[in-house]
């Protein structure tokens, strides 16, 4: 009965404090629960996308001389491969030959069962088909008759029905069972696709060592949503099949490979979510603790009254537990509700049930937070202890600060950071041949220590400002306080404990928002940079005779930049050679400074512009040939010409260039050195804001199927890891939302609760004759201190944390960023919250202080 009475009293008379504590717990529950829902949804998306990107799940290849008699799971079709010696197109007296290639024999419904394997570009799919590159080499079109040079057999004639693109040519022509390093570097140049019956008619009689037989398998795609679980299931099934085939065949597990990459990305994303989410949860816990501390004095008074009326320790414990349970359960329920709402608003495919582990863990966290913050405060209010010690200005620092724990933690953070961010460090390790991947959790220590150290340092700095530095506070408050400035500063100095904690909380909230937002913004930018690096520009055109003017005329095109591409030998090493226009290349594509070690993008391009025969080479080439700037380098083109260059700098990445060695030179110099052209021209097209895929379609309509046209939208889906494919905007929104809520609570709520506790002081000041403006001096100076601390300290800590996060989580960036992206939108949102919440808190406090002082004194 007493418990119910006490709880009812708390709810009616101390409802604000209880609601504040429950709100803090709700945030501590909602953030991890919402992240869990988002993560579960993101993982399921990764699995779905990985599955969707695989054209053929398994390629089961019969071993030479063996026959597979084991039934295949799912849906399977037999595919036959044959090697031919060459193709020839004879048209109107002209013969166009090509080199050796592969002929595939496909069943009639192959394209239906495996729609991702082929894309018909022109003609019809029923009959003999040529791959796009082959058709271009042969100058063949639907209706052309080509000659197939068969090994050991007379030539045969085939009438071409259509031209197709083979988007997954690499996996289609993989060497099944060979380790990754032994796979062909590129698919065959010449590919002829025949109906099975025709293939058998042409190639059954060729030597058997030139023929292979595969079963292409499409599995049941009802897989576990987590890519790691799906990977284990699929790879396990593939091994099981190989065991059952007893050596007659090997399984090329394309789906397993895709899921393997996705599970690595999933783990990265999980780390990302944890890295970015945990500080928010800790902040919510600290906030709850701060809120419960604010009411300590009044709580002590309440309990003293209870004690005088004979309440026993057991009664106190019962009442404290009841309050803890009420606040904890309310906070957990509201928090889970918020998480569910967040999931619904962000269109997550997984609800709270889909992330059951996170949901349960979050609710438990909520109850533990209540036990760790509300229960101790309810059992023994801090005011009871604090009341015994006088509030001295510039008194002894809290124990952690007295021993310099803040500086120790920051130093330790830097040491750990140095150790874990060195060259070659991998946060996520994928051991060869093992299904389990491991995480170097030690790398977490750097940011974690920095968080703790920065928080303590903020606490120290605020205390120093309020204590020894109170003259600064007095000066800051003097415009409002006038002659009361000194009194205001002293008054704040004597409240250094709660005030410094409030400022630290606010600064940590700002740091949380800024660090996560900066990281996310940098991540999104680098994902785009990665796609640009691969595609070259918004739209890229190859294998075309189109002119710059023709492409510029396509609607949606804002700029066209020609890029020469050929090959040249450096010693015996054949490398890609790119010719650029130094005057315009910087504006046409994205060149990061990090692509040019020891230089900047602008600096490297300037070197090209300064000397016509300047050449940028890879680091590997510099090492191999011991090059020094200015050294003469003679390159041999594929047609045997020797072209002299001078080494000008290093380039590690370049749009459309391969990851290994390549060369970048002046296009004009290349043109003069190779009058007939040293290669082909690639056009980098910038759009005027029109979606790149739309512009690509328009260009395709103009240039026909022979031209190679790629766009940024498609490339982002194809080249990006599955992590990149997960829309981080949802995560950003969640973190920004909760971060802003935390910041609002850490600034506004703590201020209002603090002012509420000091209503008596303000009322007394009014009785002594203080005018509203003079009361405002006390209030606005405190508000200003919180704003100043949160802005300066929070921004500094946020920037440092973002820097460290980007380096520690460098594995998720490809390429590594050369500088952080500033999330202006989030910064503006943060500023808006501050501009609304802080003045609102001050205005509310001032309004409360203007109440008739006797009414206030009577009510308290």
């Amino acid at each position, binding site marked *: 009965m007493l418990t119910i009475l006490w709880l009812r009293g708390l709810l009616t008379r101390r409802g604000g404090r209880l609601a504040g504590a429950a709100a803090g717990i709700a945030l501590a529950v909602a953030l991890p629960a919402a992240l869990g829902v988002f993560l579960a949804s993101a993982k399921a998306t990764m699995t779905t996308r990985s599955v969707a990107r695989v054209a053929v799940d398994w390629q089961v290849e019969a071993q030479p001389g063996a026959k597979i008699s084991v039934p295949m799971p799912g849906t399977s079709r037999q595919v036959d491969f044959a090697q031919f010696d060459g193709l020839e197109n004879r048209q109107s007296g002209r013969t166009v030959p090509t080199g050796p290639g592969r002929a595939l024999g496909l069943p009639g419904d192959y394209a239906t069962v495996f729609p991702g394997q082929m894309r018909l570009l022109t003609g019809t799919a029923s009959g003999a088909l040529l791959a796009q590159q082959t058709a271009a080499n042969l100058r063949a079109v639907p209706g052309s008759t080509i000659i197939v040079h068969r090994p050991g057999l007379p030539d045969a004639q085939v009438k071409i029905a259509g031209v197709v693109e083979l988007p997954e040519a690499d996996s289609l022509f993989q060497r099944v069972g060979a380790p990754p390093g032994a796979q062909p570097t590129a698919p065959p140049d010449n590919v002829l696709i025949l109906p099975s019956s025709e293939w058998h008619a042409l190639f059954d009689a060729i030597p058997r060592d030139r023929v292979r037989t595969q079963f292409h398998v499409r599995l049941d795609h009802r897989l576990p949503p987590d890519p790691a679980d799906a990977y284990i299931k699929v790879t396990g099934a593939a091994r099981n099949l190989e065991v059952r085939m007893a050596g007659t065949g090997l399984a090329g597990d394309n789906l397993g490979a895709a899921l393997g990459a996705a599970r690595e990305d999933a783990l990265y994303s999980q780390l990302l979510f944890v890295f970015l989410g945990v500080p928010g949860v800790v902040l919510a816990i600290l906030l709850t603790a701060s809120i419960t501390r604010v009411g300590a004095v009044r709580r002590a008074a309440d309990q003293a009254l209870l004690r005088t009326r004979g309440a026993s320790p057991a009664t106190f414990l019962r009442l404290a537990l009841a309050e803890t349970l009420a606040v904890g359960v309310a906070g957990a329920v509201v928090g889970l509700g918020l998480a569910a709402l967040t999931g619904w608003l962000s269109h997550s495919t997984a609800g709270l049930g889909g992330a059951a582990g996170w949901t349960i863990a979050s609710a438990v966290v909520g109850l533990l937070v209540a036990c760790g913050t509300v229960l101790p405060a309810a059992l023994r209010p801090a005011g009871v202890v604090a009341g015994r010690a006088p509030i001295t200005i510039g008194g002894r620092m809290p124990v952690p600060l007295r021993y310099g724990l803040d500086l120790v933690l920051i130093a330790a953070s830097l040491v750990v950071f140095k150790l874990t961010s060195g060259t070659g460090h991998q946060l996520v390790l994928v051991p060869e041949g093992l299904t389990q991947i491991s995480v170097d959790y030690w790398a977490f220590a750097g940011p974690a220590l920095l968080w703790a150290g920065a928080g303590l340092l903020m606490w120290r700095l605020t205390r120093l400002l309020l204590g020894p530095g109170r003259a600064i506070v007095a000066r800051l408050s003097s415009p409002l306080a006038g*002659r*009361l400035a000194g009194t205001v500063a002293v008054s704040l100095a*004597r409240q250094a404990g709660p005030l410094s904690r409030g400022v630290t909380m606010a600064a940590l909230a700002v740091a949380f928002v800024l660090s996560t937002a900066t990281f996310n913004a940098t991540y999104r930018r680098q994902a785009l940079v990665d796609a640009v690096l691969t595609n070259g520009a918004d739209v890229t055109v190859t294998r075309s005779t189109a002119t710059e003017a023709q492409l510029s005329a396509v609607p949606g095109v804002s700029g066209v930049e020609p890029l020469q591409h050929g090959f040249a030998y450096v010693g015996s090493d054949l490398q890609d050679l790119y010719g650029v226009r130094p005057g315009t290349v910087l504006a046409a594509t994205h060149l990061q400074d990090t692509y040019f070690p020891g230089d900047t993008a602008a600096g490297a391009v300037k070197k090209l512009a300064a000397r016509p025969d300047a050449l940028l080479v890879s680091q590997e080439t510099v090492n191999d040939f011991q090059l020094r700037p200015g050294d003469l380098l003679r390159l041999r083109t594929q047609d045997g010409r020797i072209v002299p260059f001078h080494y000008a700098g290093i380039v590690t990445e370049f749009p459309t260039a391969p990851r290994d060695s390549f060369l970048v030179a002046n296009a004009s110099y290349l043109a003069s050195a190779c009058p007939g052209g040293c290669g082909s021209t690639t056009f980098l097209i910038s759009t005027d804001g029109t979606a790149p895929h739309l512009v690509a379609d328009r260009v395709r309509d103009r240039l026909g199927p022979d031209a190679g046209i790629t766009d940024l939208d498609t490339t982002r889906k194809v080249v990006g890891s599955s992590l990149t494919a997960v829309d981080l905007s949802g995560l950003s929104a969640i973190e920004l939302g909760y971060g802003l809520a935390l910041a609002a609570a850490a600034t506004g709520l703590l201020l209002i609760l603090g002012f509420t506790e000091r209503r008596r002081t303000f009322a007394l000041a009014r*009785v*002594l*004759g203080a*005018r509203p403006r003079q009361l405002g001096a006390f209030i606005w100076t405190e508000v200003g201190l919180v704003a100043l601390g949160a802005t300066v300290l929070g921004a500094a800590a946020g920037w440092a944390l973002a820097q460290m996060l980007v380096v520690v989580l460098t594995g998720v960036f490809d390429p590594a960023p050369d500088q952080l992206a500033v999330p202006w939108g989030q910064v503006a949102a943060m500023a808006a919250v501050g501009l609304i919440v802080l003045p609102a808190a001050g205005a509310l406090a001032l309004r409360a202080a203007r109440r*008739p002082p006797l009414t206030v004194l009577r009510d308290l």
Partner: protein
Amino acid sequence: MGVTGVTGVMGRAVVTCQDVARTYGRGSKAVVAVHGVSCTLAPGDQVALMGPSGSGKTTLLHLLAGLDRPTTGTVAWPELDDRPRGRVGVVFQGPSLLPPLDAAENVALPLLIAGLPDVDARAMALRALDSVGIGDLAGKLPQELSGGQAQRVAVARVLAGSPRLIIADEPTAQLDSALAARVVELLITVARRLTAALVIATHDQMIAGLLPIHWRMRDGALEC
């Protein structure tokens, strides 16, 4: 019925009340705390305001101090040019010191509020503390003071402001009788030194006996 102080020196009244009433709340919940009160206090008047709990003593004191406004009737402070803010010394029943300020700062606060320079305010505060015999407690915080010491600081705060009217609402309620007498004697001394009007609300006959004028309140009305 109107009452007037009789010991006051000649000159303008410090405060006058004309048919003053104060009602809290509205309608059926309205509570009439004070009604029909008319009174005048001249400089040097020393009044013991007595009456049972709930009779309206505190409300009348607040009206006299200008901390509350009457619902009907008028309160005027002719000697204060009708601007009582900061010029009426008030000693409360409970703790009235600001917790984050030490004794000297508490005493100096109304002077600073009134616009005195910091140095002057502090010097006057120290003098006031000395004059009530607790100069050695200048640097102590309210939480370090006993109840009697805190009330002495409150008296020093009144003294430092040189008010023309001193209002004390049961200033000895939480003190033992010996200490209570000392505090009231201190208030009387201070009022005499300033030629200020003094009103002390009290239940204690011994305290009331120290003051020459006795006002009694019953059910919100002032009796002679």
